[in-house]
């Protein structure tokens, strides 16, 4: 036998980069994105007649460059991100306890569930008129509509999570002497975290959908408004810059939410 291997040092930054770049997963993703823009470029240049109304990626890139230099562009990011954050955060703060309560107490569920199911099918955008009338500022009404988008999803996920906790976990805890409060905080809550994470993941996507639509209808700023104004001005490359920005914003938010949920569930980490 040879001597024991030296303790593993953390891989250097250069090595980590080399590993990332050598990963075919990265290249498959890049391939798809690059292919998409290439096909778009060729077809907008005239290969497909109906695509000529759409500006080419090169034109869009030029417009993007101009936008990047405009303070208004960055303000739009900040505005939309803020609305998403508040709507999303409020939905979690109110939705998680509500879902837990509905899953924990049968009488509370029987009390609240019918009303919940009656309100749930109303699309967030149908709340726009009432919201504008009700809330004193435009900002609040858009944040409220965003909140609606994420709220029902998180409640349903948490409720489903609580209901699917294996009864053996609760039985065991009670056998060991846990009080109802201990069962709730130490068993039900952690057992529901995976469902909360799923709810957040779905919810963040919906909030971006909703905030953009709400801004187009009722906003005076934000990425949705930016896109809409570009359309009204007949500036098609600007419209597409707006769309791509929204896509990027959603991508980044989802990645953040994913990061949070990994932090919340150390036991799910694959070793």
């Amino acid at each position, binding site marked *: 036998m040879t001597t024991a291997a030296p303790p593993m040092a953390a891989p250097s930054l250069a090595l980590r980069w080399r590993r990332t770049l050598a990963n075919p997963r990265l290249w498959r993703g890049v391939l798809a994105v690059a292919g998409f823009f290439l096909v778009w470029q060729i077809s907008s240049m005239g290969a497909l007649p109906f695509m000529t109304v759409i500006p080419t990626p090169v034109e869009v890139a030029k417009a993007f460059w101009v936008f990047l230099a405009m303070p208004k562009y960055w303000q739009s990011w900040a505005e939309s991100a803020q609305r998403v954050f508040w709507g999303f955060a409020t939905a979690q703060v109110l939705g998680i306890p509500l879902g837990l309560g509905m899953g924990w107490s049968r009488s509370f569920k029987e009390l609240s569930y019918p009303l919940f199911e009656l309100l749930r099918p109303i699309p967030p955008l149908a709340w726009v008129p009432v919201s504008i009338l009700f809330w004193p500022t435009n900002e609040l009404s858009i944040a409220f509509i965003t909140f609606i988008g994420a709220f029902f999803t998180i409640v349903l996920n948490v409720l489903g999570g609580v209901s699917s906790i294996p009864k*053996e976990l609760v039985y065991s*805890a009670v056998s*060991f002497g846990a009080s109802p409060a201990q069962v709730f905080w130490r068993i039900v809550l952690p*057992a529901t975290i995976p469902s909360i994470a799923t709810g957040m993941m779905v919810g963040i996507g919906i909030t971006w959908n909703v905030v953009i639509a709400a801004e187009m209808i009722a906003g005076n700023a934000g990425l949705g408004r930016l896109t809409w104004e570009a359309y009204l001005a007949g500036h098609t490359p600007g419209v597409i810059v707006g769309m791509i920005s929204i896509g990027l914003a959603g991508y980044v938010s989802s990645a953040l939410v994913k990061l949070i949920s990994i932090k919340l569930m150390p036991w799910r980490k694959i070793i």
Partner: protein
Amino acid sequence: MGMSQPVREDMESSLAAPVCRAPDGALSIREVSKIYDPEGVHVVALDRCSLEIAAGEFVAVVGPSGCGKSTLLNIMAGFDHLSTGQILLDGQPLATTEVKPRPGSDRVVVFQQGALFPWKTVLENVIYGPVVQKALGKQEAQERARQMMARVGLSGIESCYPGHLSSGMQRRVEIIRALINDPRVLLLDEPFRAMDTVTKSASHEYLLELYDATGKTIFFITHDLEESIFLADKVAVMTTRPGHIKMTIEVDLPRPRDYRLLASPQFMRLKAQAVEAVHEEAVKAFQAGEREMA
């Protein structure tokens, strides 16, 4: 596994109940019936089940799925209550028509699917009982858990999450998590059911070693006759619809037992007799069922 004799004696000193206490954990199940009546349709899950379990005895209940054996265990654990009859634990009523049983750390259950808390590490799982009951401080409980785990060859996995362990390992941890509470009875609900043969066999020996070391009363549920004879002092055979203990088979095989026993003539003979008797009962029950259907 195959632990040597000195280890077994060593385990005895750390796992056994305090020396001064009289051995406890005697169970007396008397004429217990359980009738479910959700919508006015009587479903008899248990029909006048009687079984005497001496303190420190290893009793296995064997029967087909749906025969009510888990219902009986759930009543003893305090997760369900009986309709008629009574169950005494060390002479005290545990469950009667008046006394609703309550779950307690003197009757811990190890479940088939496993019930380790996935978000807690192995060590946190094992100390859960003593800490939640405030029987031990966290430090003391950790110390004791490490000791117990070391004695049964579970060292080194304290900081793992259960999801990273094999099912065999998980069940071992779970049995230790139960034993650290020093229960009067250990209730095992088909704990090795979903295991492959190799893991199962190792788990059997592990359980037998713990039993020999601790002398706890064990109530073990299974549908596997061979398993029940290999492990238990007494096998209660249950038949279905309605769940009733049809017979008990005394297993007078010597302890400590190991896998070699499975191939011994004594074991074979006992198993053959048991198979014969169970088969007779099964046929009767099956025919009764057919008549009922016709």
